[in-house]
């Protein structure tokens, strides 16, 4: 049996604890942003690929017993005054084999325009096995008025790619660069 003041104190203590829960939930909400990103990159949850250069694993041997088809897709997003498309639509590679391909870009306006390519891999589960050694998507690209540019991409498909995946599609959505 509590008297009024004891109850007041107990109430206040409980309110503080509950406010702590609310605060923790707020922190959790914002922590979900990086957490989600990490989950995506580790599991390929959303077809995201790492946006940093992969090192060629020296121990990686080329698995000549299987072929994987890599398809290339390019999208120019509204607001970017560029022409942009892959030079080849697909390539067949052995897992582990380093391959070079390129995309073509041209600024069709009279002013410099910067863009940022956003990669996406489908199926999502293949994303983590698609390794980019060099890519124009690692940083923003700026084209001078009327400039054309070959944008190189060096990559390999990890031999750890699950057996049932025979085709990987790599898409670049080129956006007007944001500040």
């Amino acid at each position, binding site marked *: 049996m509590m008297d009024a003041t004891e*109850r007041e104190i107990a109430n206040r203590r409980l309110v503080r604890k509950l406010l702590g*829960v*609310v605060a923790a939930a707020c922190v959790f*909400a914002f922590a*979900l942003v990086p957490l989600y990103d990490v989950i995506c990159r580790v599991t390929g949850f959303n077809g995201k690929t790492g*946006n940093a250069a992969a090192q060629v694993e020296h121990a990686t041997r080329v698995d000549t017993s299987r072929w994987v088809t890599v398809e290339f897709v390019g999208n120019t*997003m509204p607001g970017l005054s560029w022409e942009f498309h892959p030079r080849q639509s697909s390539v067949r590679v052995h897992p582990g084999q380093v391959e070079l391909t390129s995309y073509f870009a041209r600024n069709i306006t009279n002013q410099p325009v910067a863009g940022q390519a956003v990669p996406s891999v489908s199926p999502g589960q293949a994303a983590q096995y698609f390794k980019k050694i060099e890519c124009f998507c690692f940083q923003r690209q700026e084209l001078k008025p009327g400039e054309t540019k070959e944008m190189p991409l060096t990559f390999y498909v990890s031999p750890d790619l699950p057996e049932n995946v025979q085709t990987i599609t790599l898409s670049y959505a080129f956006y007007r660069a944001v500040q």
Partner: protein
Amino acid sequence: MTTAAQAHEAHHDHHPTGIMRWLTTTNHKDIGTMYLVFALIMFMVGGAMALAVRAELFQPGMQLMRPEFFNQLIGVHALIMIFAALMPAATGFANWLIPLQIGAPDMALPRLNNWGFWLLPPAAILLTLPFILALFGIGDGAIATGWTFYAPLSVQEGIGVDFAIFAVHLLGISSVMGSINIIVTIFNMRAPGMTMMKLPLFAWGWLITAFLLIATIPVLAGAVTMLLTDRHFGTHFFNAAGGGDPILFQHLFWFFGHPEVYILLLPVWGFIPHILSAFSRKPTYGYKAQVYSFWAIGILSLVVWAHHVFTVGMPVPALLYFMYSTMSISLPLAVLFFCWIATMWRGAMSFETPMLFATGWIILFGIGGLTGLVLADVAADAQYHHSYFVVAHFHYTLFAGGMMGMMAGTYFWLPKMTGRMYSEKLGKLHFWLTAIAFNLTFMPQFFLGLAGMPRRIPDYALQFAEFNMISSIGAFILGLSQLIFVYNIVSCIRGQGEKAADKPWEGAEGLEWTLSSPPPYHSFTVQPVVK
């Protein structure tokens, strides 16, 4: 003893009158009344919007409005019904009943309680104001993204989204305040002898709801805040161009959104057993099983959210996980159904209005629950998802399972709250009209969805015409029959109808029935002891 208590009470009974009474009140019954009246008003407002939608969908072709206005109506209808009708109704009942049921003189934090309520009217104004502003050429109307705010559409849309974001913030703060108050009240204000495992199930249901609210509302608030900064302050949480991801929004939203379903339902699951047991004249079956099921459902609801976004594309293991975890919710839910029916089993039932609503509620909510089980199947969900099948499903869970539950509760406790009996004849008429019109409205929508009609479209192909017409006719009957409900409530409040006994229902159990009808302004001046 009695006279002393009454004298004591009379001494405490002076409080401001008129508008100031309601603005400044810290009395749990006054605040509960305000919540309930507010919920009823917003229920009618949201219902009017639904009727406008159904009127447009009565026939193929655009008759009454432009597509963008249609999109605004559906979104605001949902936001109002969920945040401004169902949730305040549940909070209103909590305010009225929890102190009475656990033998507390009032809520633990009366002033917080007052603030919590008075955040609601401004939020309701924020939600609907853009409609009016648009009439004067300011902005392009209310939020037109549906209640789900999906980015990037919500980044693209007009000022209605900003208004809705602020409204959601206010509503969120209000429900977090309410939840804290309810948790503290239940933990600290119980009468002696009222142990946790003697707590009325309504209090238990609300306790889980309150915990879910304080855990998930901040996530929603965070998500819409990120949306706001994406819209106006150049952040890129949900924009791929800046390294963000629009799918992140959906995960954040449904991390809140799925528990929200149970937030709306748990209070109803709480008070249905009170009604069933009262009119079966038989104690509640499986009290402990029900409490544990509440816990199980509360916890499970936090880990199944992605079944709302199956079509977004996920790795197979994720699809399987969310499918099976969703299916497993059916187990604790089945426990509840079992207990409800076992409570009725071999009772001595009579079917006054609250019992009619409770029984109808079990059946209709059962349909909602079973179709939910089917929706968990990922491959078939590709067909059901965002079709009218889903619209029908969640109206069976939220209108039948939520609103009709609230109506059962209203009829059950209205005599206690107002001290007057409602018209039993009109109550029964209200039930039958509601139950029949509800099925007439939403049963055809299951078939519309199966036939391939997407939701949220203002106009549809000719093959969908017949079912839509039936559905619209049902909706108008449903809408109009709610006027009976309003009439019944208003006449009780105005003191018409016979005087209610302290315990108007023969089989009712619980501390609230030991008080007079209506209960004194300050109840339990002498603390009851539970044996």
